[in-house]
């Protein structure tokens, strides 16, 4: 009777199995691709503008007021400014402002996108708190 030999060398699988690792990595990549647009949501914090009082008067004097009109033009501290000139108009005002508070009033017919673009430009130029005025 011939002797049975158990063969272990040479042809056995000696490399680590990479299949599970690759599976997991591919799933991660797919999920990141799908979830990225959802998680790129950000935000701009807003508060409500104070109405008055003794401290309110001082606050009103130091804050910068932007009004967005129905015709898309703006007023910055009651000076008419074209939409494209907002940043240039805000820059010196914010540089000289101590509080850098900006108050925004917007006409109801203006699109939300326009409103947000104004807030964003103010923030980019260095605005501190942004308050919105109601009706």
């Amino acid at each position, binding site marked *: 009777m011939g002797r049975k030999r*158990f063969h*272990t060398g040479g042809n056995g699988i000696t490399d680590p199995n990479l*299949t*599970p690792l690759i*599976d*997991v990595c591919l*799933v*991660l990549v797919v*999920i990141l691709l799908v*979830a990225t647009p*959802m*998680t*790129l*949501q*950000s*935000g*701009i*914090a*807003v*508060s*409500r503008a104070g109405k008055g009082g003794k401290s309110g008067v001082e606050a009103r004097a130091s804050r910068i007021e932007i009004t*967005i009109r129905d015709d898309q033009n703006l007023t910055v501290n009651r000076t008419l400014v074209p939409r494209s000139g907002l940043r240039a108009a805000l820059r010196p005002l914010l540089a000289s402002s101590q509080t850098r508070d900006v108050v925004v009033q*917007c*006409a*109801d*017919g*203006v*699109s*939300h*996108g*326009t*409103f*947000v*673009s104004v*807030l*964003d430009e103010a*923030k*980019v130029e260095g605005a501190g708190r942004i308050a*919105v005025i*109601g*009706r």
Partner: protein
Amino acid sequence: MRRRHAPRQEPITRINVTPIIDVALVLVIILLVTAPMLSVADLPVDLPAAHTREAESQRNVSITLSSGGHVAVDEEVVERASLRAELAERLRKPGNENVLVVVRADAGAPYGAVRELLADARAAGAKRLAIATRQKTETR
């Protein structure tokens, strides 16, 4: 002296389920992690793009105003008239007293509708408000 025999190797005939278990576990973990971030209503909303990055990664209650005018609080679509009550109920829950309320409105929506949402949120007791934007990725 008895000779020790090496165990006899048999071919593996069963299906290897290890990869599918790996993938399933990773999916479960990712869903657990991302579920709180995705607690927003499934309404079509084209958020306005902005460079500013504030109020990120904070626990929040969201109010969604879709392009079709539908309103939702977190993932629940509500009637416009009942928004204030629904929001007040959520803000009354323990731990929500100072929670950030994020208004997610479509870029094409009129500002008047957004202003009313902000006013309703204030009236419902929201102390901190933010307007949701989509992150602009291009350089300034």
